Structure formats: C-alpha cells, structure tokens
C-alpha cells in the first residue's frame, strides 16, 4: 500500500465481514420462521430476528464504507491519514457499541431495553430500521463525526480529487440525514414523512454517491483508464442520482396521509431512478473494455462489473417494477418490496463494499493480488452469492405476485395469513437459496485463507 495509515482499513473490513455472517445467519433463522412459525420461539421471536438481520446489514455496510474511506482517502489525497489512532479508537467503540446493542436486542425484552437506555428522555425507538436505543444512536453520531473529521482533515491537507469530494459529500450526507432519526413527532404521518429522510435519502440518495465514488476508485485502479474520463462519468452519475432520487422520495408518500400530488411527483421522478444505475452499468463495462492494463486482481474487476449489473437489476429494475403509484396501490408492503430490497442492497451496497475489500485487502496484506487459486475460490463465492440472491429475488417476486393476486385483486380475496399458506412453497425455495448464499459466503471467506503464488506488490 502507498500510505501506511491505510492499514486502519483492515480491522474495519474484517469486522464488516464478521457482521455480514451474523446478518446472513439471522436471515436464515427468519426465513425458516416464515415456514415453521414457532422455530426458536420464544428465544428469538421473528420481529427480533428481523431487527437483528436489518440492523446488522446497516452496521456492517457502515463498517465497510468507513474502512473503504480510510483506505481510499489517503491514496486519493496523497497524504497520510490525519489520525490513524482516532480511527482505531472509533473502530473499537463502534464495534463494542454495535455488539452490545445486538446483545441487548437478543437478551432483553425490547420494552425493557427501551426503559434501560433512556427512551423516555427522548423517544426514538420502535421504528423500523431505527430501532437502536438512544445511546446507540448518539454513539453512531459520535463515531460518524469523529470519522468525518478524520477523513475531511485528510482531504483538506492533501490533494482534492473528484472522487474524494463525491465520497465526502456522500458520507456527510449520511451523517446529516441520520439526525432525522432523533426526530419522532407524535403525528404518525409526520413521523413516517421524516423517517424516509433517513431511510430513502440514505439508500436512494447519499449512499449512491458513496457507491459511485468507491466504484470509480476501483475502476481507476484496475483499468488504468484516465482519471479525467472516470471523473466525468462520476459527475454525470451523481447529478442523475440527485435529480431523480431526492424528489423520488415521493414514492414512499403515496398512502401515508400526505397530499395527493406526491403520487405524481413520486411516480415521475422515481420512474427515472434506474437511469443513474444504468449509467453505472455502462460506466463499469465501458471502463473495463477500455482498460489500459491487465491488473492481476481479476476478482476485484469481477466485483466491480457485478456491482454495475446487479445494482441496475436490483435497485433500478426491481425498484421500477412497483414504483408507479397505480401499481404500488396493489403491491405496497408485499413480498415484491422484500424482493426489491434483497437484490438492491446486495447489488448496490454489499457488492461495492466487497469490491473495495477484494481490491484493497490483498494490498493491505502486502501483495498486489492474491494467488490465482485464491482468486478462483473468491470468484466461486461471488457466483454462489450472486446467483443465490437472483433466485431469492425471483422466488420472492413470485410470492409477491401471487400474494397481490390472492389477497388484493381476486374477486374473493383471502386474508393475509390464508394467503401466506398459499405461497409457502416460495418461502421454502427462498430458504434453500438462502442456504446456498451462506455456502457462497463461507467459500468467499475461505478464499482469504488460501495461499499459493502471490502477485508481487508492485502494481
């Protein structure tokens, strides 16, 4: 690696992968609870498993983003990290706080956890994805601010590039919009309205900027294409993202008590949200086909191309599928949403973090790329996980279409639970593909422990 302080990225990446394993295990538990309702009850009820599954996802992606930023920013800024010590201290604080939160979820009744952690001082808990106790939320803000301070100071003292600016914009946006998680008005409409400012403006706004910056960085490294060309694409992509994504928030406002015009605004703008993702796909393939060098790390290139394709399919296409108000009127809150959620998170954010790890980890371990043998195993992990997520998405889409039909369109609609009985087979198929995903993840992790002839650390 070019700057020795980039090494602080390593623990972040390792923690990210560790928490990823936890997320998948809880996903499998929930998947089984879909078909065997009292599995692990009362030790781990469904709502707790779901909370752990989604919270772990967010936390490990945050670890991934932070690790990526600590790796990327010194190299882009051509200077050492402002304070590697601060980065390591924050790592341990974040890891311990995250672990304690999960232990709290699992060991205590949620209401007790709320009482113990000061929820009566400022009620912020109990809302989907923002279930964290107040002290954890405050901890997230502290860690995020220390992290932002650290990388912003690094950028300020070094070279300023488009990639580091876009990354900073995305990360600052992430921190700023998280502040809305502290705002919890009594009015449920207002509550949901601002809740989406965290949830939507993260994943369909500022996170896309982070995604674009990380992808652009890896593409510069593995293709050797001129920075100027790559930065121009990045500008186009982030502009398209912000133009479509910000007002696209309206696609969450259809049926929650907001004025009717949101149905038009949400439909029109969010219908265009696939465009930046499509641009990202074209970008990745175009840069790789115009590559000026054969980088020894072929696995990282595969992850970069995979991110381009899968984010377009998952976030772009599967998002478009149910974004128009007249369609969403029927599909709202069904398994169609779950299908979209799985492929979008995997295709966009999981893959870009794994792409960064794939590129950076060998360098952090003192070589340009892993041995061919290790890369082949890593690529097996890539294909197993990616194919599994495609099938999980297809099965959930099948379940969702049937659910919409049986429960909402049919002349003799069934109740929610009666409908669930009818689509059980899809849930079984999804669970088995989930096992395939876990196998893929194990294979992926195994690739880190495979030796062989490493590529020299000169690239």
């Amino acid at each position, binding site marked *: 690696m070019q700057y020795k302080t980039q090494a602080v990225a390593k623990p972040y990446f390792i923690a990210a992968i560790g928490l990823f394993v936890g997320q998948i295990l809880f996903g499998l538990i929930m998947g089984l609870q879909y078909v065997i309702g009292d599995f692990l009850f009362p030790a781990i009820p469904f709502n707790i498993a779901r909370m752990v599954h989604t919270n772990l996802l967010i936390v490990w992606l945050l670890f991934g983003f932070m690790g990526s930023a600590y790796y990327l920013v010194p190299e882009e800024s051509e200077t050492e990290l402002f304070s590697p010590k601060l980065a390591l201290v924050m790592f341990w604080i974040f890891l311990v706080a995250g672990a304690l939160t999960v232990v709290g979820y699992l060991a205590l009744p949620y209401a007790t956890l709320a009482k113990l952690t000061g929820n009566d001082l400022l009620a912020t808990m109990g809302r989907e994805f923002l279930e964290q106790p107040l002290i954890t939320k405050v901890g997230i803000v502290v860690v995020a601010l220390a992290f932002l301070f650290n990388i912003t100071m690094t950028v300020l003292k070094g070279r300023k590039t488009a990639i580091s600016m876009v990354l900073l914009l995305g990360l600052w946006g992430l921190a700023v919009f998280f502040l809305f998680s502290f705002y919890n008005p009594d009015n449920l409409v207002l509550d949901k309205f601002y809740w989406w400012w965290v949830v939507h403006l993260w994943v369909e706004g500022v996170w896309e900027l982070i995604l674009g910056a990380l992808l652009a960085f890896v593409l510069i490294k593995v293709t050797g294409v001129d920075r100027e*060309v790559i930065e*121009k*694409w990045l*500008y*186009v992509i982030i*502009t*398209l993202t912000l*133009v*479509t994504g910000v007002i696209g928030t309206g696609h969450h406002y259809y049926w929650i008590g907001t*004025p*009717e*015009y949101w149905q*038009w*605004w949400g*439909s*029109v*703008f969010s*219908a*265009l949200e696939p*465009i930046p993702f499509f*641009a990202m*796909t*074209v970008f990745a*393939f*175009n840069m*790789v*086909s*115009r590559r000026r060098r054969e980088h020894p790390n072929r696995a990282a290139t595969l992850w970069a*191309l995979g991110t381009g*394709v899968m984010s377009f399919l998952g976030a772009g296409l599967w998002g478009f599928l149910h974004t128009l108000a007249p369609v969403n009127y029927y599909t709202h809150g069904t398994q169609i949403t779950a299908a979209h959620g799985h492929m979008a998170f995997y295709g966009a954010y999981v893959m870009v973090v794994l792409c960064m790890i794939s590129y950076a980890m060998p360098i952090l371990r003192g070589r340009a790329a892993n041995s061919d043998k290790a890369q082949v195993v890593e690529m097996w992990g890539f294909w197993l996980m990616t194919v599994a997520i495609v099938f999980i998405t297809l099965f959930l889409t099948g379940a969702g279409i049937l659910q919409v039909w049986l429960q909402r369109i049919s002349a003799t609609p069934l109740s929610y639970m009666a409908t669930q009985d009818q689509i059980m087979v899809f849930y079984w198929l999804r669970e088995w593909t989930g096992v395939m995903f876990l196998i893929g993840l194990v294979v992926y992790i195994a690739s880190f422990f495979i030796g062989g002839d490493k590529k020299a650390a000169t690239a």
Partner: protein
Amino acid sequence: MLAADTPLPSLDTPPAGTPRLAGDLAIWIFILAELLAFGAFFAAYAFTRAHHIELFTHEQQALNRITGAINTMLLLTSSYFVVRAVQAAERSAPAPCARWLVAAIACGVGFIVIKLHEYSAAFERGVTLSSSPFHMFYLSLTFFHFMHVLLGLVILSALWLGARAGRYRPNDMNGLESGAAYWHMVDLVWLVLFPLVYVIH
C-alpha cells in the same frame, strides 16, 4: 445487456475527421435524462387531462397567456443571444462573446421576474398543489421548469466568467457549447410546456 467488447462512444474528444458533437457527451446524457423527466410529466398531464377535460379547459382560462407569451419571446431571444455568443467565440472574439452572454442572462432574469409575478397572482387566487389536478400540474410543471431556468442562469453566469477570462477559443469550445446546449434545452422545454399548459384546449 452490453457486451464488454462493444465500447460506447467515449467521453473523450473524438478523433479528427469524425462528425463532431457540439458540447460534451456527458451534458447530452444529462439533457436526455432531463427531457425524459419532462416527457414523463407531460405524458402524465395529457393522461390526467383526458379524464378532466372540462376542469382543465376552465382553469386554463385563468392563466395569463400574455405574460406566458412574453416569457416565450424572452427565452427564444436569449437562446438566439447564446448562439451569437458561441459564434463570437468561434471567431476568437471573447469580448462580444461575453456581451452576448450578458444579454442572454438579462432575458433569463426577465423570465424569472415575470414568472414570480405570475406565481404571486396565482397564490392570491388560492392556487395550490392540492386545489385541483390542473393546478397541481400547472405548479409542478412550471416550477420544475423555473428551477431549470435558475440552474441555466447559473451555468450562463459561469460561461460569462469564462468568456471574460478568454477561456473559449475555436479549438476549445467544449465548455461553452455544453452550457449553451443546456440553455437551449431549457428553452425547448418551455416551447412545449407553454402551449401545452397555457394554450391548447
């Protein structure tokens, strides 16, 4: 899906001899996305109008077509001035280029002033996003366009600064042409929007 071995038109300057795209390919991708957004909104307008023809015709009568027509003239004129600015730069004449851009900016500012006047009159009549489907489209479409005029003015101002610094020359027109293309797009959208929302019934 795109095959990895069919490269797309690059974002670089194409080799000499091939037909030249005025402005950067990046700005054209952006313009295309903008036109798609407006196109989707226009289609939604047409679709909704078909269900409420009488309401739309009735409420359309309350709009001020005179100021709308003046605004159309202003944008068309400003587009003409931008063309003159580009031509001046092609002759290596930075001073006239900057002056034409100032004229174009003045027209754009005129558009903004008239539009703000129109909005305040509409708000006095009780027009809101929720007062009727027509009002929703009228406000959404014109305001979305209004924001584009503002962005266009920022871009023209940047071009003006560039022109004064003598940055645009016959062999270095990329920035000026890209900004000019964006401004023409803003004009073009209004040329569809004005008849659609204000006139056709």
